[in-house]
Each structure stands twice: as structure tokens, then as C-alpha cells.
């Protein structure tokens, strides 16, 4: 008998504006986590970012690649978060994959796609330079706030 492989762990639909959404007490029973966001927010072309286990220090790094319809560019750096996609006033589709989140012998690598049909298409790699298992994920709108109706879904992918 097959076991659940792609398991919904939590689902949030905002009833009012919020600057962030946090998934906490995350089960350690899976291999990867996936956060899917329809990022309706108050600033067009805004970013969604992720932080783990309440870490707000500069323990994250990223490389991003994006296209605006007229040009393509890449940037990188150290930061206090990793990219989790995009958000905008018209909504976006963003998917954040967090690999081996429960491992305690690896830094945490993430891959995200953020697509806002109105302004940008982007992909980003993130690394949290910490071997601790991830037990919470906080998704934050970088410039504005999320609007009512924005949705956030957390999935566990089986080991």
C-alpha cells in the first residue's frame, strides 16, 4: 500500500493584512519542505523572503537570476533571509523548495521560483549556513504587507 508522499502540513489564507506568516513546530518526518504562495501583497514587484528557526542574523546567502521582459540579470550576497519568491498587488505564484530540512549535518539549501506575470520572472538559490534541523519557517513580504486573500501552503515530501 503506498504511503503519502506529498503531504499538506498547513494551509493559511489571510483574512486581513499581515506582514508575515510563520509555520512552526514543523514535523521532522519528511525529506524536503515545499512552501507554495499566492502572494497577494500591497506593493507591486515585491519579494517574499524566508527565515528559519527565528534566525534573523546574517547567516543566509543567495544567488538570484531574473528577467524583467527587457533584460536579464543576476545578483548575489549575504543577507538576513533567503528568497521565497515574489508578491504583488495582482498576485503571484511562488514555490520554495527546502531540501533536507531535517538533516543535522548540512547547511540548508533552498530553490525558489517567483513569477509575477506583470513584472518579473525569477529563480533563486538560498543557503542557511546552519546545520540545525528546521522547525519553523517564516515568510515575510520584504517591502509591503500581504493582503487579505493571500495564501500560503506548506507541504512535506516523503523521505
Amino acid at each position, binding site marked *: *500500500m*503506498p*504511503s*503519502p*508522499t*506529498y*503531504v*499538506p502540513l498547513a494551509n493559511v489564507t489571510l483574512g486581513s493584512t499581515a506582514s508575515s506568516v510563520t509555520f512552526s513546530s514543523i514535523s521532522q518526518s519528511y*525529506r*524536503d519542505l515545499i512552501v507554495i504562495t499566492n502572494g497577494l501583497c500591497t506593493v507591486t514587484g515585491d519579494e517574499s523572503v524566508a527565515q528559519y528557526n527565528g534566525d534573523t542574523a546574517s547567516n543566509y546567502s543567495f*544567488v*538570484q*537570476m*531574473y*528577467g524583467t521582459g527587457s533584460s*536579464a*540579470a*543576476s*545578483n*548575489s*550576497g549575504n543577507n538576513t533571509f533567503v528568497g521565497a519568491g515574489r508578491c504583488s498587488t495582482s498576485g503571484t505564484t511562488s514555490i520554495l*523548495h527546502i*531540501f*533536507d530540512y531535517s*538533516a543535522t*549535518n*548540512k*547547511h540548508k*539549501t*533552498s*530553490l525558489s*521560483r517567483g513569477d509575477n506575470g506583470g513584472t518579473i520572472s525569477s*529563480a*533563486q*538559490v538560498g*543557503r542557511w*549556513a546552519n*546545520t540545525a534541523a528546521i522547525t519553523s519557517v517564516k515568510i515575510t513580504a520584504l517591502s509591503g504587507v500581504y493582503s487579505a486573500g493571500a495564501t500560503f501552503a506548506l507541504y512535506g*515530501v*516523503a*523521505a
Partner: protein
Amino acid sequence: MYIPFGVFSAGAGTTAFTSDYDLISSTILGSDTSLISFDLTGLGSTYKHLQLRYVARSSSGSTPDYIYSRFNGVSSSTYTAHWMYGNGSSVLTNYATNSNLFYAGWDSASSLATGAFGAGILDLVDVFSTTKNKTMRSLSTSVNNIVLMSGAWNATTLVTSMTLQNYSGGNFITGSRFSLYGIKG
């Protein structure tokens, strides 16, 4: 009675759960390994597509290292790939046609900080078709690069195996992980 999301309660003697996205195999390396092999024989009767999710680091210092694949052990010049990548300062693109391997994704090099692993998601759509060439796409990273890659094996042959190796010749190091999922259609 509360029914957990994704689980359907049924009468005694019937299947309580159906799945269309199944874990086929998952390996975490206990030692450095040069070749990862998947036996795909017979899977086409159940699955239409495959997805490989991996976390990998090469023993080579080359950065990034390319993970390449072959179907059915075929090493003739029947593979093609195109990719674009961001390295933190610019977006670049490259390709390989009539190649004897197909580029599946990138992994991290030994020169990176301890604990830093590359990762990727490789989708093989209609991989068991015997009327279509085999196509794939991937999103992957070597940690200091991010790459979108597409590839093709120009053959309608039934796929029965897939292998992965580092292009540099380096091993996949201990702790690297390869998980294969089957998707029904």
C-alpha cells in the same frame, strides 16, 4: 469523526489511501560514490513521469560541477542540452548538442564551505513513452550559481535505467542524497 486531510476513510478490506506521486527510492550516501544507478525496469506500467530530487556535493574542486546522466547506458551522441544560469553577477547561457551524455543539473564543489550542498529537481516527462524522444527540465544549484536546464535524449527507446555521475570525474560525497519519485498519469 475527523478525517485527516489526504486520507480517505473506507470500509474494512478496501484500500484506505491512493497516491499518484510515489517515492520509488531514496538513497543517502554513506561513503563517497562515483556512480548513482536507477533500475527503471517495469516502472512504465505504473508511472508516466519521473522526478528526481537531489542534494549533492562533488569531491572535485571544480565549481560548479555538472551532474550528467545516461539512459540505458547509451553513450552515443544522441543527447542535447541547453541551459541558462546566474552566477551572481550575470546571466549566461550554453548548450551541448549531439553529446554522448545529457546534463541533468549542477552540484556543489569541494571548495565550498563544509556543509554546503548543491541541490536540484529534475523532471522527466513521458519518460516511458516508446513513441517520443525523452525530454527533461531541471532547476538546480551549485550554491554559488543557479541554473535552468533542459535536455533531450533523441531516442524513442523504452527507458529501463538511468545513471548519474559528476562531469569532473569526482565522487558524490557522503551525505549526498538522491530521491526518485514516480508520477502517474
